[in-house]
């Protein structure tokens, strides 16, 4: 690794000022550091300055308010999210997703904020948070702004964050009564921790009739996407195996999949269809058909 300076500001303002002052030099923000250390060790990035978020109090903690919903400080680690009693009771789908990210050691170090800012498509949190209608709060010396997660993740490894901004927190609105979700994914091998397909379905039903549903697909696409056509197809209808199959086929058709060494576009499309069908069936009480995916 190239030599660098390590700076630990204690407030968002101080960090933002440092980022603005150092804008022309190679500077990187470090949260947990799991992804950044890898890219630095492989010399994909060679920053001269690392600005650590560790000592900024405002970026830590998880709170819940029944009207405002969930607030997750960006420095919250995946393990904290998975273990949080607040998250487990109000958003079990989110806790279940967090318990599967990468591996135990990475969950003990990597943070939700770091994960979202890195914007790697082959990961779990963005897809799940998209189906939960999450928003992000960005902070700088210029103040704070809120945007939907769907606007924050712009492209493959690219977000809407400005050079002097920090991801402060992630907000998840309260789930309406009776709404619950399932997050599923497909890993090519048990040893590979990066999903090839991820699907999150959050739905509200009564005796298999879909009152509301939100579907997000990721890992197979450059950015995770909501599936508005398919959501419309399901809303108001009785969900049976045939409709779930048709919805899954529509999802597979609607996505624009990545195609790379880990999986061709056609393979990804097929696996998205399979995982989506199983996930829809599980959310709408047609049994857990998860089989090979988790």
């Amino acid at each position, binding site marked *: 690794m190239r030599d660098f300076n390590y700076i630990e500001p204690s407030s968002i303002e101080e960090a933002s000022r440092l980022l603005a002052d150092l804008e022309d030099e190679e500077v990187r923000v470090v949260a947990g550091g*799991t992804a950044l250390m890898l890219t630095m060790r*492989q010399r994909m990035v060679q920053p001269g300055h690392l600005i650590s978020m560790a000592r900024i109090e405002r970026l830590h903690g998880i709170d819940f308010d029944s009207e405002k919903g969930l607030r997750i400080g960006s420095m919250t680690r995946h393990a904290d999210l998975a273990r949080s009693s607040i998250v487990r009771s109000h958003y079990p789908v989110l806790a279940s997703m967090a318990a599967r990210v990468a*591996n*135990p*050691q990475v969950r003990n170090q990597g943070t939700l904020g770091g994960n979202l800012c890195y914007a790697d498509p082959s990961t779990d949190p963005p897809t799940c948070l998209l189906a939960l209608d999450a928003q992000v709060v960005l902070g700088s010396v210029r103040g704070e702004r809120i945007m939907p997660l769907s606007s924050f993740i712009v492209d493959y490894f690219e977000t809407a964050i400005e050079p002097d901004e920090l991801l402060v927190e992630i907000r998840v609105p309260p789930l309406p009564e009776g709404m619950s979700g399932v997050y599923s994914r497909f890993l090519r091998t048990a*040893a590979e921790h990066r999903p090839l397909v991820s699907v999150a379905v959050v739905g509200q039903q009564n005796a298999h009739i879909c009152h509301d549903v939100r579907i997000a697909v990721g890992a197979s696409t450059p950015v995770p996407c909501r599936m508005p056509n398919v959501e419309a197809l399901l809303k108001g209808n009785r969900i049976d195996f045939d409709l779930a199959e048709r919805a899954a086929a529509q999802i597979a058709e609607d996505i624009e999949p990545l195609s790379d060494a880990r999986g061709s576009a056609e393979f990804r499309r097929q696996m998205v269809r399979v995982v989506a069908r199983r996930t829809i069936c599980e959310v709408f009480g047609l049994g857990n058909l998860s089989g090979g995916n988790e």
Partner: protein
Amino acid sequence: MSKHLVECTVNGEVCQLEVPAGRLLSDFLRDDLHLTGTKRGCETATCGACSVLVDGEAIKSCLMLAVQVHGRAITTIEGLAQGDTLHPLQQSFLECGGLQCGYCTPGMIIASCDLLKNNPDPSVDDVKKGLSGNLCRCTGYTQIVESVLHAAEKMNHGN
């Protein structure tokens, strides 16, 4: 490169050392403190041989900077035994043959410590998931899983 005074506890002993910002925790432990039980394997966070406990939680020390452990407590494989008495996990790996070349063993045992702390009575599947951040290229894992289950039983029910 900036230099930083790192004050932390390593295996119960207070340690103060000035390190450059880029010093990895794995190098800090092995090269500065000469605690070579922590192994460097893949150096890309895949194999888990470099796992250590930071405030009781397993992390991969090839991915963490020494400056990140300022004020925290580190436990390495050297810190598990009580004098000549091995930790139940160490004893169990010995009895069940949970190793061949032994290179991955410190990481496996450290990851198992974290697993059993959170889940004292794990299923086979729980153990496999708990060790999913660690690779062994000799054993095929069967005896590693048995070692962890055996240790859990001993720790829960005494000898």
